[in-house]
């Protein structure tokens, strides 16, 4: 730092999550924090076709609160809700869900984990009893076999990928289950012992056939199962997976993977020593995402690969604080600590602490909010730090839903795609401008430390406090540490967590309480959180997203090393030079059949819509499968993806969209409309009229009164 100016970002050698490493995003892509595109003044407008009007914080917050109350009066208490971001801190997420459950008076709160790892939360809770990964990252140093399913760590989780590769160089075996020929399959110094290049959408078939081999070839960890798992459920599962229809030979037609490869991989996983599974969004973002997560947990229990170092079930998360945003109650059915809102004991605990009555039934999930908006029963939304227009599937459905709403409040550091549909813009703060905590995929809680004052006066948590106050509910905090203290008081797995202890220990992996005062690096050591582990039958059900003559290819979407999620931050840094646009990867055979040349423009057409990208002819793809990323809004990757979703959680099926790809000469209709709309919105922003300015309101964050509307 030079004063309050960041001059260089270097990883902490003592950092317990990364041990002194960072990726090109963390190391170089922080300049967005002071980018000229930052919006630093609150703004309001009556309609999205109106020019923005710069106003004071007072006026913006008053307007937002009045609009929310007006909508509730007109359409009912349940007609508004909020969205928590996995980019914001635990404390900020906690306050947004608290705002919804207190000031809004409903459970209509959700998080962007909905569109990435919500199936992990569901699947691991059902089988193991806790909605979280089981290990530390360091645990991989003790793995003898590493199975990577539906993840591309060298691009999406590069720091962990380096640690994984280090272990591979020292002799661990590697199984990769992925439709693409990702770098881990074969790159300098790393070669997978098995690559199972399955067809997109067939994870559950693959997992069942691996389980079939383990059961029918006598590779079960019988002592572990007898001691640690529910017997009846195990027997039912064992009988199911042993059916001939689940054999690799029977499943070969579905997965496209030769049976002998599957048998070899299954034998290695079951007999190769400590075996760990690492999985990503290629598992969760499917119609059977939750089923696949349960299938993974089944494999770990069946082989006794859980409850010690070197093994386990390890979700690789989609953003920096996905784990944390889920932990602190941002799902519409759960209070902090993954406790269902129907649990009266938990609900009463929070009711006493918060001084309100909490609704006992689940609220709307994000896709349900969109559907409800279109039927006129959900008309207002508070969206903190999340860009649902760019990140959620079927963009045209999302924008139609947002256009139907009467008040959208966006809190962000930039005028993102969602903000173009907003009526109130509240300037956000970057991670450099606030205190708080993030929780990574290891359940590791680490401090976020303020190094510069908030550029728009307030940190995000303060804005939520002020909005709540305007809606008649007082939140009484002087510092985010007090928010964490409240989380700890009310959440058994966080009872021992405090900023003071975080300073002492550096970081803490929850559960952290009287039983585990220093935290819990490895979970489920002597028993599962739910008591006995529960095997669950995972029958393969083909997705409804079928290839046809009209849509003969499968599109799967993902990420690239240098860009982060929707790219709102990394696109505004020099990282853009490494990846200047989203492209469509296509196998040479599919390209040749269509007359597509490398670098040429191609139209990608699905049942949802059409967009145009440049093609990259690549043997990383298998024939019949194409791939793109979603880092640039004008690419319209999610114009093509559909509303198909996971049966249990509504997590979108980003990984399977039936498409046709053909050479084209011009951009798609959607892209033309998008260009026009963006230009109009850009002009409305440039012409923002000055209202009462950016005066700090005469409000103290630490309010004296504790009045509840």
């Amino acid at each position, binding site marked *: 730092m030079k004063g309050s100016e960041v001059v260089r970002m270097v990883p902490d050698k003592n950092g317990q999550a990364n041990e002194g490493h960072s990726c090109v995003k963390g190391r170089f892509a922080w300049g967005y924090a002071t980018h000229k595109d930052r919006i630093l003044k609150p703004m309001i407008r009556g309609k999205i076709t109106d020019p923005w009007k710069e106003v004071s914080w007072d006026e913006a917050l008053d307007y937002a609160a009045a609009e929310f109350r007006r909508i509730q009066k007109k359409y009912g208490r349940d007609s508004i809700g909020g969205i928590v971001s996995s980019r914001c801190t635990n404390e900020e997420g906690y306050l947004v869900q608290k705002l919804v459950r207190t000031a809004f008076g409903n459970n209509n709160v959700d998080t962007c984990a909905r569109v990435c790892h919500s199936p992990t939360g569901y699947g691991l809770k059902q089988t193991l009893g806790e909605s979280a990964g089981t290990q530390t990252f360091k645990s991989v140093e003790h793995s003898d076999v590493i199975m990577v399913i539906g993840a591309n760590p060298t691009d999406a989780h590069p720091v962990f990928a380096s640690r994984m590769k280090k272990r591979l160089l020292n002799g661990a075996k590697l199984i990769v289950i992925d439709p693409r020929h990702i770098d881990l399959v074969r790159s300098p110094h790393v070669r997978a012992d098995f690559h199972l290049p399955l067809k997109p959408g067939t994870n559950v078939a693959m997992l069942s056939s691996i389980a079939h081999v383990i059961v029918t070839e006598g590779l079960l960890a019988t002592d572990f199962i007898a001691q640690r798992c529910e017997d009846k459920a195990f027997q039912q599962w064992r009988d199911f997976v042993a059916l001939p229809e689940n054999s690799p030979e029977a499943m070969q037609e579905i997965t496209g993977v030769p049976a002998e490869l599957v048998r070899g991989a299954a034998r290695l996983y079951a007999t190769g020593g400590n075996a760990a599974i690492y999985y990503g969004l290629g598992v969760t973002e499917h119609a059977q995402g939750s089923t696949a997560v349960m299938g993974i947990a089944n494999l770990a229990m069946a082989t006794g690969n859980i409850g010690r170092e070197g093994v386990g079930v390890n979700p690789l998360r989609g953003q920096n604080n996905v784990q944390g945003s889920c932990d602190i109650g941002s799902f519409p059915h759960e209070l902090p600590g993954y406790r269902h809102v129907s649990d009266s004991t938990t609900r009463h605990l929070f009711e006493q602490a918060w001084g309100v009555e909490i609704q006992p*039934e689940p609220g709307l999930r994000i896709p*349900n909010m969109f559907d*409800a908006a*279109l039927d006129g029963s959900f008309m207002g939304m508070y969206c903190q730090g999340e860009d649902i227009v760019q990140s959620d599937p079927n963009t045209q459905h999302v924008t139609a839903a947002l256009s139907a709403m009467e008040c959208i409040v966006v809190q962000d550091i930039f005028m993102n795609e969602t903000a173009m549909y907003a009526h109130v813009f509240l300037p956000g703060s970057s991670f450099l401008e606030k205190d708080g905590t993030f929780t990574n995929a290891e359940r590791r809680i680490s401090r976020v430390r303020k190094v510069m004052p908030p550029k728009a006066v307030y940190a995000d948590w303060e804005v939520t406090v002020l909005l709540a106050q305007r809606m008649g509910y007082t939140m009484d905090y002087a510092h985010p540490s007090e928010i964490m203290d409240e989380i700890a008081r009310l959440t058994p797995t966080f009872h021992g967590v405090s900023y003071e202890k975080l300073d002492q220990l550096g970081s803490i992996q929850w559960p952290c309480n009287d039983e585990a005062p220093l935290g819990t690096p490895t979970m489920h050591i002597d028993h599962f959180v739910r008591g006995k582990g529960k095997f669950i039958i*995972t*029958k393969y*059900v083909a997705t409804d997203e079928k290839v046809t003559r009209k849509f003969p290819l499968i599109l799967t979407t993902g990420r690239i090393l240098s860009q982060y999620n929707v790219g709102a931050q990394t696109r505004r840094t020099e990282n853009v030079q490494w990846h200047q646009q989203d492209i469509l990867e296509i196998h040479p055979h599919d390209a040749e059949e269509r007359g597509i040349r490398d670098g040429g423009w191609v139209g990608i057409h699905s049942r949802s819509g059409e967009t145009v990208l440049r093609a990259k002819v690549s043997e990383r793809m298998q024939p019949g499968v194409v791939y793109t990323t979603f880092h640039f809004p004008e690419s319209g990757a999610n114009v093509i993806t559909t509303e198909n*979703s996971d049966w249990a959680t509504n997590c979108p099926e980003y990984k399977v969209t039936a498409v046709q790809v053909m050479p084209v000469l011009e951009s798609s209709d959607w892209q033309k409309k998008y260009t026009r709309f963006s230009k109009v919105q850009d002009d409305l922003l440039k012409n923002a009229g000055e209202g009462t300015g950016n005066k700090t309101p005469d409000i103290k964050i630490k309010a004296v009164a504790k009045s509840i509307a």
Partner: protein
Amino acid sequence: MDMHNLIHMANQIGSFFEAMPEQDEALIGIASHLQHFWEPRMRSQLLEYVDAQNGKDIDPLVLSAIRAHRNMLVSQKQA
């Protein structure tokens, strides 16, 4: 909300629980999932549709679950 979408989602839930060896377990599993994860207006709309359309296009197993455990699906505000 879009009824076609609600039916599709309900049938997807049925497809998962269909694999349960004991039908009672499947029926309670389906009803419990709807109760725990569907917002009341979604459940109410599904119930109204079942009554009005005799469950047309709803998977038989899901329909059985809805009929066997209807009380679980009624919004507490309406109960």
